[in-house]
């Protein structure tokens, strides 16, 4: 004889059924707002120094980048901007994939591509900032930043 299903106590308070095991989406939501506010300062500063000051975009060359990255200030600035922008952008595109890609295999492959791009670009960018050589041996002197001749 099968027992009848248990009837819930009518005095029990309502308990919300959790659909996820973690607060990942909550932290993602907070991160988008916190990183967005920081990125506004970092990106506006980046655009001002590279496109507005002096000759703007025409002044950008190897010597210009070399001059910036010999200063720890700009190394930290660009590194922070790289990481925050990559995580912020990857999480944004992840949200868009979740919203519009409905077939499971399409979702899976779009997300795999996204995460591969994230790892490759973030690791490459980090290595470039940390291993940058402003005065490579054997390069023409007129292409190098002035600090190479001090």
């Amino acid at each position, binding site marked *: 004889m099968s027992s009848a299903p248990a009837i819930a106590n009518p005095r029990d308070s309502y308990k919300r059924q959790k659909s996820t095991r973690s607060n990942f989406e909550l932290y993602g939501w907070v991160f988008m*707002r916190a990183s967005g506010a920081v990125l506004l300062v970092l990106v506006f500063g980046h655009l001002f120094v590279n496109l507005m000051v002096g000759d703007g*975009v025409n002044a950008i060359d*190897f010597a210009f980048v070399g001059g910036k990255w010999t200063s720890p200030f700009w190394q930290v600035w660009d590194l922070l901007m790289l990481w925050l922008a990559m995580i912020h952008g990857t999480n*944004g*595109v992840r949200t868009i994939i979740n919203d519009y890609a409905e077939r499971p295999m399409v979702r899976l492959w779009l997300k795999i591509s996204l995460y591969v791009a994230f790892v490759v670009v973030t690791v490459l960018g980090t290595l*470039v900032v940390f291993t940058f050589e402003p005065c490579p041996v054997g390069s023409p002197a007129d292409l190098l930043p002035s600090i190479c001749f001090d």
Partner: protein
Amino acid sequence: MPSAPAGTLYRGREGMWSWVAHRVTGVLIFFFLLVHVLDTALVRVSPEAYNAVIGTYQTPVMGLGEAGLVAAIVFHAFNGIRIILVDFWAKGPKYQRVMLWVVLGLFVVTMAGFLPRHLMHVFGGN
């Protein structure tokens, strides 16, 4: 008769269109970011390789592209602040519509400061 198809969640007006613009500009900026890290990585190849590629950023066509990129970034940044205010400021939802017009006003002012100078660099021959 409802003017929108039955059952749609899309409400139109300032709320929806700012959300659409935020997504479109966000995706554009993200794909440029991927390319921009790769082109900057050429400083590890050689000064000549980096200068050759960055030289293409200084052509008129790319110069207009940079103007569009900056416009996308400026809108995304200011509308992002609006989203933060809608979420965390008690009166944010009430003023979300007004705040979009403030965002667009700040956008016009910022671009008015940036565009003439950038276009001068791009088309003024240095």
